[in-house]
């Protein structure tokens, strides 16, 4: 697929449809691709698309859809939800953007492979469902399904929500285990409040306040975050106490509630492996229960459940009737 995409993007450069393209560039190893802005067909020689192109490129358009000429962006199915949400929020201008929707079979998490105790990884070849891993310490094998990124475990399906053209072979394929999406949220809900507090205390005490979760998040698009504003009184570059550890993440989850598409980038980039997506998923689950099934970013013209008022809206006093824990 990489070569097909590369050829098509080069064509679009050559016929002047686009002036720049956002994709992924080859890294030092086979798994460390960097998002890149390509300015010409010739630049595209280092373009790469494989099992390690997890980054959601839609947020880059905030800074790259304003200059003159059209910007091409390559979006995987899940990335298109973020794109639509950014359109809804008027953070990007579709007129200046050309989308190629590209197919995706799930992205691999190199950290999950490392967690299996596999060190010195030099090459991975996919053989059907299996990954053959060459390392400095001999050949290892594992199932691709066992080392997929967390976000791919609850894939929303292979269908692109918005595109100008498609390069995808499995557009109509439905994910098999989307029903498991809320399993961990259910588990957390079924805990006692003490157990749940201990769970989050344990996870969030690892937080180093690097802000990677916030900065990668397509829903976090404020020009200046309150936590970066020294005049706000809550700016903190470090967690002074365990309250602050939780405050940052809980405030952020509240702020993106109803807007979070569950793209899973927060969990992917967290250097401490904190399952931050679970906070967002709890909100998504509650919104589904209280306001009806809603998927942020499904279209660009829907009104968000928390930013729209309808007479059917649940009254806060009725929340307990809906069995929201």
């Amino acid at each position, binding site marked *: 697929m990489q070569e097909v995409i590369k050829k098509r993007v080069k064509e679009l450069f050559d016929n002047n449809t686009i002036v720049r393209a956002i994709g992924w560039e080859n890294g030092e190893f086979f798994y460390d691709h*960097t*998002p890149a*802005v390509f300015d010409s067909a010739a630049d595209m020689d280092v373009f790469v698309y494989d099992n390690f192109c997890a980054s959601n490129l839609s947020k880059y358009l905030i800074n790259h859809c304003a200059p003159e000429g059209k910007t091409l962006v390559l979006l995987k199915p899940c990335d298109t939800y973020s794109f639509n949400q950014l359109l809804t929020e008027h953070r990007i201008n579709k007129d200046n953007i050309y989308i190629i929707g590209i197919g995706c079979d799930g992205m691999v998490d190199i950290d999950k492979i490392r967690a299996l105790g596999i060190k010195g990884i030099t090459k991975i070849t996919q053989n059907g469902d299996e990954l053959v891993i060459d390392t400095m310490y001999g050949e290892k094998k594992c199932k691709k399904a066992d080392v997929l990124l967390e976000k791919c475990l609850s894939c929303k399906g292979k269908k692109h929500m918005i595109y100008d053209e498609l390069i995808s072979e499995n557009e109509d394929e439905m994910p098999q285990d989307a029903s498991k999406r809320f399993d961990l949220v259910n588990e957390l809900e079924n805990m006692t409040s003490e157990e749940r507090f201990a769970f989050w205390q344990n996870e969030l005490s690892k937080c*180093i306040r690097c802000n990677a979760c916030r900065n990668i998040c397509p829903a976090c698009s404020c020009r200046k975050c309150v936590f970066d504003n020294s005049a706000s009184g809550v700016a903190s570059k470090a967690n*002074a106490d365990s309250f602050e550890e939780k405050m940052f993440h809980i405030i952020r989850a509240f702020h993106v509630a109803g807007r979070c598409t569950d793209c899973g980038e927060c969990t992917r*980039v967290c250097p401490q492996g904190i399952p931050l997506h679970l906070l967002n998923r709890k909100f998504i689950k509650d919104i589904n229960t209280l306001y009806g099934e809603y998927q942020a970013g499904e279209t660009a013209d829907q009104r968000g459940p928390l930013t729209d008022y309808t007479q059917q809206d649940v009254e806060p006093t009725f929340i307990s009737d809906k069995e929201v824990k």
Partner: protein
Amino acid sequence: MQKIKLENINELLQSMAQIGKVYAPIEKAGQVNYYEWNKDAKLRLDVLNTVKSAKDVFFPQTEDLASFKTEGKEISIQAEKPLDEDFAVFGVRACDVKSFDILDKVFIEENTDEFYKARREHGVVISHACNEPEETCFCTTFGIDASAPKGDIETYTVGDTLYWLPVTDKGKEYSAKLGNILEEADESQVNKQKETIKAIMDKLPLKDVTTQAFGAGKTMEYFDRPEWKELSEACIGCGTCTYVCPTCQCYDIRDYDTGKSIERFRCWDSCMYSDFTMMAHGNPRKTQTERFRQRFMHKLVYFPDNNNGEFSCVGCGRCVAKCPISMNIVKVMKALGGK
């Protein structure tokens, strides 16, 4: 040289904990960082890179400096005191051991930071050789030998045994306090292991990364290079690289109003942040490209400028493994240095 069976390592740590606190690579909620050891802790001596480096032990991410209180017209100031008890940090890899020398240049050699200095004086560094270096490792670029990790005491894992070699007087004194928990051993097994490690180091994929093109006096050569824009284009401006880095040493001092008092604390800062070195007139580095350039120029040019050519990178590979967009010092060195 002495030794102990790995299955008895908790007994060793128990004895060490009686001398003073022991910080070690410990797994918590699936991640390994340096935490104080206790008998319930899950020691992970096999893990090469902790998420946060061992610098956290000497230069913690946050520390209180002073507390101010007002009562009526009286203002009382309570200053924190530097640490006054011995401790040990166990399982430190060669790269992190070297990072302490680099931090010393900043916190002890020029102006003395009493908090840092006290921790350095009271801390015994017990290193651990790397049997299986990762593909992300490039310590050899900075002349570091993972088979001779240095510190006050060197330790080696060979098969089911941990070997223990005091190197400095501080390390010898510490070992003497341990009593009979360790038994005498000869060096033959360790020497064999060292050769094995060296052979692996020669095959590491990043072994040819070189600092040759960089160093003191090169500011003008690199400052305006066009590559900075492209290299920094995808940078999301988070602080991951700076916070997992063993040599990043920038910090901020802030006052926190608790409602009853003002707490003055110090915390790590990141040159990648938009409010780094913010002044009354604004931020001197307005774009992410400038902030990105600052980080790498500091490590590869400015630090050598001020420290007899020494680079402030130890090749631990944490930024290589952890950057959300996979941009790192290796890519920067190759793009700018032409290799």
